[in-house]
């Protein structure tokens, strides 16, 4: 029970001090950013979330980004709507959209929604910069951050709890 309650904190500490590669952290954060920006309730958001969970990426970093960019995404809705409208009404792309929309399950993706497509476009546009920045952060700052954080007993305790939970020792 305690483990369940402390799980978010454990995940956060693990996201900061886990011994995963910077690329995994960057991918996780980027996927989380994409899943966070895209409005929920459609197949695209579900697929992005499933990818975040199913791929060997830093999930805590991804969840952190998901929560963060869900809030940011609401603020970006007007911009996303404008971009989505522009893309969806772009005449040369109409046959492509028509083809896409005719595919099975494609209408469930929500890509015909201006905000969904707009947020996806924004997310894709930001994906590389975010990935790059996160990689840099994970490469250069993570070791120092780990060393700094490991000095705190609470972090060590939370990290130990998470590791214990992974090998089946539940608090």
């Amino acid at each position: 029970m305690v483990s369940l309650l402390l799980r978010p904190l454990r995940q956060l500490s693990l996201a900061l001090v886990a011994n995963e590669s910077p690329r995994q952290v960057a991918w996780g954060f980027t996927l989380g950013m994409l899943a966070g920006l895209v409005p929920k309730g459609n197949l695209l958001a579900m697929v992005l979330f499933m990818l975040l969970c199913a791929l060997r990426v830093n999930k805590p970093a991804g969840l952190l980004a998901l929560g963060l960019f869900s809030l940011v995404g609401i603020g970006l809705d007007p911009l996303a709507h404008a971009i989505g409208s522009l893309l969806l009404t772009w005449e040369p792309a109409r046959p492509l959209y028509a083809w896409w929309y005719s595919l099975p399950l494609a209408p469930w993706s929500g890509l015909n929604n201006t905000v969904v497509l707009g947020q996806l476009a924004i997310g894709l546009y930001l994906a590389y910069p975010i990935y790059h920045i996160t990689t840099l952060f994970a490469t250069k700052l993570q070791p120092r951050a780990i060393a700094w954080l490991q000095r705190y007993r609470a972090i060590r305790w939370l990290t130990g709890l998470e590791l214990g939970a992974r090998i089946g020792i539940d608090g």
Partner: protein
Amino acid sequence: MKHFRWKYVLPRLAIVLTIILSTYFGLDPLLHWAIVAGGESAVGAKFELASLRSSLAQGKLELGSLQIANPRSPWRNLLQAEGGLLQIDSQALLNRRLVISEGSLHGLEWNTERSTSGALIEQNTNSADNRDPSAKGAPWLESGRQMGADWFGDVRARLEQDLVGQLETPRVVQDLQDRWPPQVAEMRNRIDSLRAQSEQLQGQLKAAKKNPLRSLEQLQQLAQPIQDMQQQLLAVQQQLNQWPEQAKLDRQAMEVARTHDQQFLRESLHVDGLDGQQLSDQLLGPLVAERLQTILRWVHTVRSLAPNRAIRVESDSVRGVNVHYLGPQPQPRIHLRQLALSGSVRLGATSTDWIGKLTDVSNQPALLNHPTRLHMQGVGPMPFQVDLSLDRTGTLARDEITIECPNLPLPSSTLGGGTLTMQLLPGKTGLQLHLTLTEDQLAGQIVLMQPSVQIQRLNRSTSTEKPAMVKLAQLVEQSLAQIEQLETTIKLSGTLDQPQWKIESNLGPQIAQGTNRALQQLLQQQVIALQESIGKQAQQRLTQLAEQREKAQRKLLARLGENRHLVEQLAQLGGGKEVTIPKLGKWLDALQR
């Protein structure tokens, strides 16, 4: 594959598989619940589906018996079916659309009775259905019923009016009768008075006889009254002699009165003929209102079930706008392409089978290029054809209904009201109905052609009726019996809530023609009989009067003759201004004799 966290993926896959299997095996109850809940929500009354079997692989839905209650009449079904089969396009389901490519419903019947109430517990009393144009007390319906007012009132008043009281001849005869007895009595009184005076003079003369010489002066004084009396006698005689002349004048007055009466009776023959068009309105108005009420009730029900044009653009997303980019025309979420129908319908006392086809039903009809169409065709001994089109593809909602039934059985119907209520006996009629509704604007016409028709009066004449009314009623019945065919065209306009109609029928003109002819004949007979009766009576009375007058004249002249003789004798005595002794002697001798 090393990039996947299989420890995470595999349990989720297992869960998804479980959900799919559960859905596969538990789909039928789920669909049953969804269809019943959706149906009840759409109709506003109980939607009962006995059973449902689905086949995901084949995309088939097999429906058991179905009953949809009428929200306005919970103890009747709006529709019921024995069962059906629906073919669902599974490809369209993956495209987030429910498309029923084809299907069938058999054993369809409507307006059947229910054993239990079909009302839902929660009913929205403010629903749009409350705008039912057939609601009792609707002003247009009341006006239709009012059309059956007593149109026979004017004719009755005309026939029952007191013509005799308005004639001159009886009045003149009465005047003569009233004038004659006092005239005779006055004359008799005058003669009696003269007789009394002459007797008095005679008495005075007798008294003078006893001593004539002494009464000489008195005798001289009596000469003047005798002369006066003589003149009065002459005047009375002259008056009596003028009586035949007076009789001539009276006869002339009678002739003038009779001429006047003939003119008056000729004028009374002129009756404003019954207006055939107005009569058609009055007779058929209530019946048309009732039938129209039924038709419009069904139109209203169908319209209330049809989706609103306002949901043309779907905006089910809270964030952003959904853009349909499947080709030039987006497709509706729910689309029933084609549904074969079969069932039976009760027309009058007989039930007939029919087959039909329903096409292009959708929750977003504006996204379709075609209107929703229903075609029904009778296959039994009673052929009929119904075509219904609900067009929501344009900017205006346009509905069209065409019904053709060459042998529609008609139950007995009551026409008109009041004194001359008529009954249209059961028969068969040809019906052609074409209605167009653009938004709420109604236009169209109903044509009824009844090649063989029988109409009879309902309110038979009672013993209290005047003979003229009874006779007229008989003549009207005769004219009704001569009506062989009935053609009625009802032109509709106005709105669905306030429909207006104009009836063009040969019923009114036929009855009006017969009635006018009968009324004219009757009035003519009545007037001729009256003229003869009055003339005969007047002549009789006049003859009686003349006889009485002659008799009285003879009697009075005889009495006057006696007086005259006496007065002449007196006058002989008083003929000169001076009475001499020899004159007196002679006169006294004469008086003595």
